[in-house]
């Protein structure tokens, strides 16, 4: 099962290395990691998307993350009301006459063309990972020349429902 886990960490040198090293050593399967500054100076936020086999593995993962001295808080937010976004840049081939067609495909996804050249155009898409994935598969027939993704970044919504009735309300 895929889980989204966030961690607040101290901004010290080697923190990312320490954490990825621990994940590697303990054989956790990471789909993506995204890291950046947080609202507090000196603290960074990490978002992990992890494939874990069972609850025991998941518990081990959060415990091992918590055990890291630079880690201040760890949360598994998969089953909560969250906002989660990923950014992808996709460069597709094709000359002028395809541009209109591609524009038509990306419009409903609210993606945008951010670079055009004689024989390629680059599309930026932001959204939930499944939306990003859907657009990428639609673009695939046009010949993807280059693709890069940021990995998921996420946090809790401002308001949480009183009781979570739907488990795993967010699907990746």
């Amino acid at each position, binding site marked *: 099962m895929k889980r989204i886990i966030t961690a607040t960490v*101290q901004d010290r040198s*080697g923190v990312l290395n320490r954490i990825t*090293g621990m994940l590697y*050593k303990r054989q956790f399967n990471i789909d993506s990691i995204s890291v950046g500054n947080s609202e507090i100076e000196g603290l960074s936020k990490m978002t992990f998307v992890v494939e874990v086999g069972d609850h*025991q593995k998941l518990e081990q993962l959060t415990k091992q993350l918590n*055990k*890291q*001295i630079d*880690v201040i808080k760890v949360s598994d937010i998969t089953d909560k009301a969250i906002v989660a976004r990923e950014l992808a840049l996709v460069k597709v081939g094709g000359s002028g006459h395809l541009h209109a067609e591609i524009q038509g495909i990306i419009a409903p996804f609210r993606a945008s063309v951010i670079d055009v050249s004689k024989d390629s155009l680059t599309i930026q898409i932001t959204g939930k990972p499944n939306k990003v994935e859907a657009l990428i598969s639609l673009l695939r027939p046009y010949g993807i020349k280059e693709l890069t993704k940021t990995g998921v970044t996420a946090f809790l919504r401002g308001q949480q429902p009183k009781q979570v009735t739907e488990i795993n309300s967010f699907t990746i």
Partner: protein
Amino acid sequence: MKVEAKQEMERTKVLRTGSDLLIETLVDAEVDTLFGYPGGAVLPIYDALYRNKAPFEHVLSRHEQGSIHAAEGYARVTGKPGVVLATSGPGATNLITGITDAMMDSLPLVIFTGQVANSVIGTDAFQEADIMGITTPITKYNYQVKNVSDLPRIVKEAFHVASTGRPGPVVVDIPKNISAAITTEKFENDFYLPGYQPTKTPNPLQIVKLADALSRSKRPLLLAGAGVLSANAAEELKEFAEKYQLPVANTLLGLGSFPGSNSLSLGMAGMHGMYAANMGIYECDLLLNIGARFDDRLTGNIEHFAPNAKVAHIDIDPAEIGKNISTAIPVVADAKEALKALLTSSIGMPDHKVWKERLQSNKTNYPLWHEKSDELISPQWLLKQVYRVSNGEAIVTTDVGQHQMWAAQYYAFDKPNRWVTSGGLGTMGFGFPAAIGAQLGAPNDLVVSVVGDGGFQMTLQELSVIKERNLPVKIIIVNNEALGMVRQWQESFYEERYSESLLSQNPDFVKLAESYGIRGLKIDNENDVVETLEDVFSYDGPVVVDCRVVQLECVYPMIAPGKGIHEMIGVTK
């Protein structure tokens, strides 16, 4: 004083450096022994040691591995962090085995490594190694000092992290320009570690749950690990076990946390543990693990580990709970605090006379056994005599292998912190340098280092150290001219193909000892053992005793790899 004279004095005075600051922080941390080896990148620190006439001892090992194992031995017997200093590059990489060993066995160490100057870090400079990268997976935490003003805080944090919570090794990497930097920095006591708050006191609800489970249990069993020792909780454990008459099994590293000769003690559990202890684990209905980590050498095949038991686990490290064995009652706490809480809670313990009798009969009916030797010495019998002649009061350090298991089986440890062995990593070469640290930490105690002929040859250069300081360490070489445990496994599981496990070119250990100026003895007959040991243990100085034992002796009983804890072989003759 004339102005010129004063100016001249100011000019010639040695200015205060980062190294002086380091020494000040070590003095503040109450360090009394520093294990180290000099080299280029730590010359400023060694110069400061010389200039400051530091009020602590520096012990010069003959290889950095000797320093760090000695620091581990020191940490084990004193409970204080062992402190190590080594130079950059090869000096630091020579520490890796010991750092990993301390990590696996949760020993508090603070390790200072020199580093090339900040300006050349990352250029593959002379004697540069990425010690931060190398030690990240094998330390509890590590630091590289980027600014001399951070040095006191970092050292303070390092001692705090190493010795609190679940103890472990912490590396502080100090670039040469930092240790040489002129500083006016004052020593400060402050530090800030918001992400490190070990839970010492147990959750009261979990204690209630545990007390309730104990009240319902018909076949309870305590499993005591090294966490009891690092929490200094041996007294509480004894009081708890005796109050409720609970049988106790020990892990290898937990030996001594409960008196081995106590009638409630089932002895060591695990691969070469006692039948009674392992069957206790197999048959119990409540297993209370206190400070052990359910290592695979303890559990055997986990499918058969405590199959009918409710498992409760007290550990200061939450990540250990449920890691290997699923746990019904987790208690995150220091063992001492948890046991205190249990002692004050009301437990309506039922009488488990039948259960205790059953365990006792296993203990009586399936004791350890060994053959008597007609030629050379039976190693098991030798270890029994070591126990007897030392009145069970020695601090025993060992390497890894057959001699280690025989020492664990035949030496009943009644007091805590007298058993110094490499459990998790299984490090050959550990035992003898660890004895040096143990003796320095406990100068008035008899320190016996039981080593194999293989492991001893990995670190025997430290004989210079015991000679230099006249440390009265007694080195008992259990010499079977083989890498005994390897040979045993080759006999049992590789159809006697003794691939590279026989040591036919051992040195003459007596002459070797003598060449270091140390008394050397050799015994190859059981009739001479007791007299020799009496002589050796009463001699005021170091002795190397080459004990020639039967080569083909095996360690029994045993749980074969992949087998369950109830499937021991070699239980009876």
